[in-house]
């Protein structure tokens, strides 16, 4: 085993918590950024053996990585191993010229901006702090600093969002010319403040929202974006001199590669095991303060589970999934039925599998049926 070539680093700090969010986040505690970065770097040293000598991707996610004290963020970035793609997630209101320069000078190659929507009333509902102007300004700031790989996150299916609102969001986003777009339907996750406040409304509009996904895909593909994963789009290579703008880090997940995760709540998949680090900041800092590994849940992944995951992840991509080694994971009768319904296609003498366009819209259900 040559080690994982992908590294995820979790920076949990946020200025405030958005109602719909169920990620591991920490609000306030500004005094602890330094201690947290120390802990991350200690953990990196403890786990370095799990990493390959050369990394393909590093991804700093959150939380809001860019609310981390700039000095600490810079210290972290400079200490992390180099990689061909280094992504940092940022909230638009945090993107100042100084920050953009810091990121550029610390080896960051890609910035993922949480835009979510351009409608002020919907931003308010999501409890997002940035205004539409700040989103536009952030992209400009990054461009001015020389960033040539910007991704925008959009959320659709917000209570009260009309198709006109959605079209407007997509047009606004496209006008900024991002290299990459992630478009997720808003999920009412159990236990969030948002679900408490708007869950019933979301439930009510389920059917009305059904066409939104198709609309997103149609608008973006028309505009020259490749729908390369269920919820992810990038500018087509022929429009950008052959550059492959897919997120290398996320591709690694979908292709079932190993990755190491650092930080609270971070998940790793290494050599047949999935590990989940404690989400509790205190425990994490205390353990690493003593130079010890933080508490982690370990889930051994059996062969069957790994094959199940390969199919579930692989079918999210627009590239065919090789069935080599996946015998037994796919139910042949279901496959035949789904083929007849025009949802799945087999290619290359039955050795690869891909979802048709309609199949991709129904990907969750199709995969559930396909898996033996």
């Amino acid at each position: 085993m040559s080690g994982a070539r992908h590294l995820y680093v979790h920076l949990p700090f946020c200025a405030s918590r958005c109602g719909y969010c169920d990620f591991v986040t920490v609000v306030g505690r500004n005094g602890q950024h330094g201690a947290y970065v120390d802990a991350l770097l200690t953990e990196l040293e403890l786990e370095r053996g799990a990493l390959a000598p050369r990394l393909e991707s590093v991804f700093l996610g959150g939380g809001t990585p860019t609310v981390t004290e700039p000095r600490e963020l810079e210290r972290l970035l400079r200490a992390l191993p180099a990689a061909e793609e280094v992504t940092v997630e940022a909230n638009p209101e945090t993107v100042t010229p100084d920050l953009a320069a810091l990121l550029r000078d610390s080896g960051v190659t890609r910035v993922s901006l949480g835009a979510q929507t351009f409608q002020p009333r919907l931003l308010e509902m999501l409890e997002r702090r940035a205004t539409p102007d700040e989103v536009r300004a952030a992209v400009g700031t990054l461009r001015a600093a020389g960033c040539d790989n910007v991704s925008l996150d959009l959320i659709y299916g917000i209570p009260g969002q009309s198709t006109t609102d959605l079209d407007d969001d997509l047009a606004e986003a496209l006008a900024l010319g991002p290299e990459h777009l992630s478009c997720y339907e808003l999920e009412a996750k159990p236990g969030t403040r948002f679900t408490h406040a708007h869950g019933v409304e979301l439930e009510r509009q389920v059917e009305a929202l059904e066409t939104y996904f198709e609309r997103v895909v149609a608008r973006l593909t028309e505009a020259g974006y490749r729908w390369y994963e269920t919820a992810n789009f990038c500018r087509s290579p022929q429009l950008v001199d052959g550059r492959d703008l897919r997120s290398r880090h996320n591709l690694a997940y979908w292709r079932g590669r190993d990755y190491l995760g650092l930080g609270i709540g971070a998940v790793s998949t290494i050599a047949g095991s999935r590990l989940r680090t404690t989400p509790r900041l205190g425990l994490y800092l205390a353990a690493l303060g003593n130079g010890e590994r933080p508490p982690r849940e370990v889930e051994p992944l059996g062969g069957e589970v790994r094959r199940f995951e390969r199919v579930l992840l692989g079918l999210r991509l627009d590239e065919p999934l090789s069935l080599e080694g996946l015998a037994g994971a796919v139910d042949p009768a279901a496959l035949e039925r789904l083929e007849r319904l025009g949802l799945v296609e087999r290619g290359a003498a039955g050795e690869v599998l891909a979802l048709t366009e309609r199949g991709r819209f129904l990907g969750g259900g199709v995969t559930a049926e396909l898996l033996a």
Partner: protein
Amino acid sequence: MDQRRIRNFSIIAHIDHGKSTLADRILELTDTVTGREMRAQVLDTMELERERGITIKAQAVRVTWKGHELNLIDTPGHVDFTYEVSRSLQACEGALLVVDAAQGTEAQTVANAYLAIENDLEIVPVVNKIDLPQADPDGAAAEIAELVGDDPGHVLRISAKTGEGIAEVLDALAERIPPPAGDAEAPARALVFDSSYDQYRGVVAFVRVVDGSFKAREPLRAMAQGTRFECEEVGFFSPTMQAAEALGAGEVGYVITGLKDVSRLRVGDTLTSEQRPAAEPLPGYKDVKPMVFAGLFPTDSDEYPELRDALERLKLNDAALFYEPETSQALGFGFRCGFLGLLHMEIVRERLEREFDLDLIVTAPNVAYRVLTKGGEEVEVHNPAEMPREVERVEEPYIKASIIVPKDYVGPVMELNTERRGRFDHMEYLSEERVLLVYELPLGEIVLDYYDQLKSRTRGYASFDYDLVGFREGKLERVDVLIAGEPVDALSLIVHRDGAYARGRALVDRLREEIPRQFFDVAVQAAIGSRVIARETIKAKRKDVLAKCYGGDISRKRKLLERQKAGKKRMKQVGAVEVPQEAFLAVLNLDGSKK
């Protein structure tokens, strides 16, 4: 015991009017059980009986009081067991008629009181629960006196809870009820009024000896069914089994038969001695036939053998339960079961789920139909899916229903009965406030949700009882349901022609709500023969994706998908369509969906 000092009696009471508590007090006061042995409601043995407060199995307990032998014969307390009640009453010379001082008479009390009067029983009327603050002993006594044609002053007023008046009840039983007639010297005859199955001793028959006497080691015969066996033991309950030398004329007790199957010794049969057999059986034996049928299927098809074994075990103790294997293309392997009525069905289902830990799908109940085919053949149909398409004539069972309601609810009850094809028979005022309505109704209109409707339209005040009155021709149609063109046997139903369209429409609407959207459009149709009477389309799903896959937390996503798969497993496959099990119950409460 001198035959002249024997008194055999039953207690007739509506559920909750205090029958079991009264029985407990009688056992206590006669020292049949000591206080230490006393547990509440000694006579109801089964767990289920205790919980539901109803008595399924009759038992007979012997007590002594001032030189008299009193046999208390417990009767089943519900409409489905009218025949068993009538056999228990036939074993008695008298009955305690118990009415709740706060509630007054109920339909079931009236029906059973009439049954007792028809059997020439001496009625000892009792108003119970006089200790309740809301009790109206005078009102209840007037009602009960009116019912049995007695003097209100003759009605005993007691509280089984506090024990007040129990001694007077025992005195009244000894004084008012005549001793059993019957000839101690004649060839032996005993009425079987109930039986139960003991896993070590086989079938135990509960009997009332009419003539002659019975003792152990005697070859016996059940006259109606012709079953022969050697009597292993005779005895009585006090309240546990006490073996005796013999059971003589007029006495009540048990006979251990060694038989392995209760269906070989049916309630109402007459036991006689093989050596000196009686010429004639006792009158009144009926072969009770199940009238209500439903399919029982294991939710998990692997549990079929367990369901089969459980039904076999229940049948040992329940001669009225009928079952035969049934195969449904939608629900797989199961059993078509026949019941005396709805409560019987409910009890069997609960026992299967509770005592045998089975998870069941019970299809909508239907009644037995007598069908004359075009070919001139007469068949009995227990399953709508088996109703022949070409029929000359169909007959359905009818009941005479007695409904007691406060007078303000007469209108809603009449309206309900008219909707259910009822024919008004007559109406009586039981008191200024309460009215007895008598209707004739097709049993098929009762089995679905009549009782719930009756209760909801009368705010729970109505009480209801019925008797089968025979089969009558009806203009009945078989309505089939097709899902994506495939007929679904488990959803077929038989309805009156006038209601076929509305039922078909309601069923289709209901199924459209119950069946989740699939990867393709699914037509749901109701049809009579090849004629479609209602149709809905379940539109294909357009989107079904798991959302964000973030930070590498793949396990979470996998678990979501595993849950989705597990959900699919609980579905039943009808052709290419996945139908949730709940959908098969849609026919159960079609009226519910209209509101």
